[in-house]
């Protein structure tokens, strides 16, 4: 068995010192060492995107990176997307648009979408689809995911959104009451 290594990194803004085996993937370190199980394992070969985290601004499959490689990096996971009790706009829009069914791919999609909107706040539908093509969803057919990201971008920019076939995303997709509940606090 390999000797464990001390790794100093930053996860969701917090300095973290951890102990892991050199052979452990970052995903395994997040899930099994740090108990951050929000990042999901779907394939371990970088094909499904369920383990996506953002490292120094770039979306990365955490199953394709070793835990020791996180040293000195800035790692953002799904657990850090909300600010306290206030959900990120993307999280709210995924809920309002019913963009998840089973939800196993959702953390990965949210992290890929976060990385996209951070570098391109006003993406076209094609740009959204391109940025999310590394994330597989087997439940939704992607329609409501793409709409949620479009709507989130528009909301963050203070616009109303339009999607394919000219249909405006209906504002009443979520009941006002629950929307209010979710909107408590400021967005990121």
């Amino acid at each position: 068995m390999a000797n464990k290594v001390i790794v100093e990194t930053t996860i969701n803004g917090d300095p973290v010192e951890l102990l892991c085996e050199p052979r452990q993937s970052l995903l395994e370190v997040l899930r099994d060492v740090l108990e951050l199980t929000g990042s999901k394992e779907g394939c371990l070969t970088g094909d499904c995107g369920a383990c996506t985290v953002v490292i120094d601004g770039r979306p990365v499959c955490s199953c394709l990176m070793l835990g020791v490689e996180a040293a000195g990096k800035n790692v953002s996971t799904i657990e850090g997307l909300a600010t306290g009790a206030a959900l990120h706009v993307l999280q709210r829009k995924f809920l309002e648009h019913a963009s998840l069914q089973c939800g196993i791919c959702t953390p990965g999609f949210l992290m890929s979408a976060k990385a996209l909107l951070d570098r391109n706040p006003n993406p076209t539908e094609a740009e959204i689809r391109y940025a999310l093509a590394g994330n597989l969803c087997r439940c939704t057919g992607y329609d409501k995911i793409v709409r949620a990201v479009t709507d989130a971008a528009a909301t963050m920019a203070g616009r109303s959104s339009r999607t394919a076939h000219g249909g405006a995303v209906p504002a009443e997709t979520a009941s006002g009451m629950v929307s209010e509940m979710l909107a408590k606090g400021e967005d990121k």
Partner: protein
Amino acid sequence: MASDQSPEFKVIGTRPVRPDGVDKVTGRAKYGADYTLPGMLHGKVLRSPHAHARIRSIDVARALRLPGVKAIVTGADFPEVKGVMAQVGELIVNTHYLSLNVMARDKALYDGHAVAAGAATSKHIAEEALELIEVDYEALPPVMTAEEAMRPDAPVLLEELRTRLMAHRTDPGALEGPDRASNVPGHIRFERGDLDAGFRAADYVVEREFTTATVHQGYIEPQNALAVYDADEHLTIYCSTQGSFNVRTLTASVLAMSEGKIRVVPAEIGGGFGGKTTVYLEPVAALLAKKSGRPVKMVMTRAEVLRATGPTSGIKAKVKIGARRDGKITAAEVWLAYEAGAFPGSPFAPGAMCTLAPYIIENLRIDSYDVVVNRPKVAAYRAPGSPASAFACECVLDELAEKCRLDPIEFRMRNAAHEGAPQPAGPAFKKIGFAETLAAIRDSDHYRTPLNGPFRGRGVASGFWFNGGLQSSAIVNIHGDGSVSVVTGSVDIGGTRAAQAMIVAETLGIAVDEVRPVVADTDAIGHTDVTGGSRTALATGMAVYEASRDARDQLIGRAAKIWDKKPDEVVFEQGVFRPVDGSAPSLNLRQLAGRLARTGGPVVGRATVNAGAVGAVGNAFATVCIDVEVDPDTAKVRILRCTIAQDVGRALHPAYVEGQLQGAVAQGVGWALNEEYFYDQKGTLRNFGLLDYRMPTCLDLPMIETIMVEVPNPNHPLGVRGVGEVGIVPPMAAVASAIYRAVGVRMAELPMSAPRLLKAIIENRVTTFDAQATAAK
């Protein structure tokens, strides 16, 4: 949208945020692989590298000596289980073969078949231990396709199998032909009218053969199980499953345990589509836990998922259909062979019962065969059996419509089944909305917008699925603050907790966020069948509705007690209880709930249903329209536009109903264009990862337009029909027809992948060129 909502409902038809939503967007939701327990070991399975082999011996001594290894199990550790055909929810399970599939005994029957398993203090050590297990195999010739397996001289997979003609899919049936070992354990036939007369009456007869590939359900979350075996011989299993009661029954049968000693705790589940209705790891983890005395967690890799779980059958189909010039179908003869994988039990019967079910055909014969091959034993996959047989028949119908010079929707409309029409299997349809789905596509913006441009084409096709009913239980607890929790045994795979909360809110006149739905374990709720068969919103929804009404009636009794009235002197309207005579101020639920302690204690509503037994299942139909563009050089097919119309009965939460329709179409498009198992000549699976088993990404699909046709199910209190499955049935034939109109070739093989389509395009060009050259001479 406001237009979704029927005036008779306040909550049903709206789109509230799902109650489990926040957990799922923050990463807090606990799926099976997220559970850990103190002292837990990690288990891994050793799998056969051979498609067909005799297992001469297994030596685990070296593996057991590896530090950190705590237990190893092989087939020898499992009890012998007699072959009993058990109806487990929707499944017909032969417990003997289930046991052999969970762990091979004397024969490995597919690449990936479990032959041993080990538990160790880390998953890496467990993996190392597997490499130290020595298995002595005698390789046997593999049988990989239904066609090969049906040949009289084919190697036999299971010596005890005989071909039997079944009157029903659970019926063992009468021996058919000579009493000798066969790879064809099942044959079912539906027949009516006079086939010869029917074909004589036809102006056009089209006869074609089709092949479809093995495809996988493709859930993103691999199978998992965490087992705890206590010293008092009680077994607890935490796992992601579509049916916790199924897991309990099936695990009990494989381990020869009493069901009463097993508790199954369903975790959140990351997709299933039918593939998580049976057991793979659960009994293995249980035995490892028993042997080691520690909790054992097992999680499959993606390669294990593809090699050893799911998939659904590839089929071979021969279809002959005749029609008059006016479009009336006069006769149909269909022959189907479904690959079951290594053990009997393909969806050959439902495949036969569904194909052509949307149409009234007086002269009909459908034969369907269950064929064992050296592939993983198939599991249910969304409308099991229907998509492959529908692909074959719908393609022929498209060709007939063309010969009759009829619009494909009009052709279908002229033959469409309606209430009272007989299904292929015999029984008459109750109220159905098939013609309504055709009309919805015909009148849609999509269908009315002409498709222009070279190498583009439009196809339509329809599909049918029965839907399941089965059993559900529900408990509705009225809490002291007037809020309500609703407890069911239905695993929530796509938003059914939201639907349940909405039904409670509607019935008790409260806001939906005052209702907390809970999915309980097998000890905490009455028997509840799988989340599958499109049954959860329908059947568990029905139980929730009845339980809510039970609670409401009890609350009326309490109000009557407070006012010293009889229950029928109290009315409940608009969420308020009041005496009919107005002798006291009315009470809302919150006010009444605060007075339960003094009027007899808590109020708990309860109900159980068997939705099928009371005729509450509403059949489902869908029609799909797809536009494609084909790259003439590479034969890559791009989906330009896609619309599905489906009879949903009544949409409880329209956004999640749309989601079911969209997801089903997306899986159908993958089945049509890309997805297939590649086996080499030795029967080894070559594409056991998601890069090569290519499911649609969001770049491969456009927005998927949905038209929810609502023909309420007259036998359900809320008009609900199952909506989860039927949408996967039509897309393959719709894509095939669209490709034909784009490039002039009719594809008879799935998937219509670029290499296959390019070959067909080139062959077609050569044929056309030859014909032109001959004509020119």
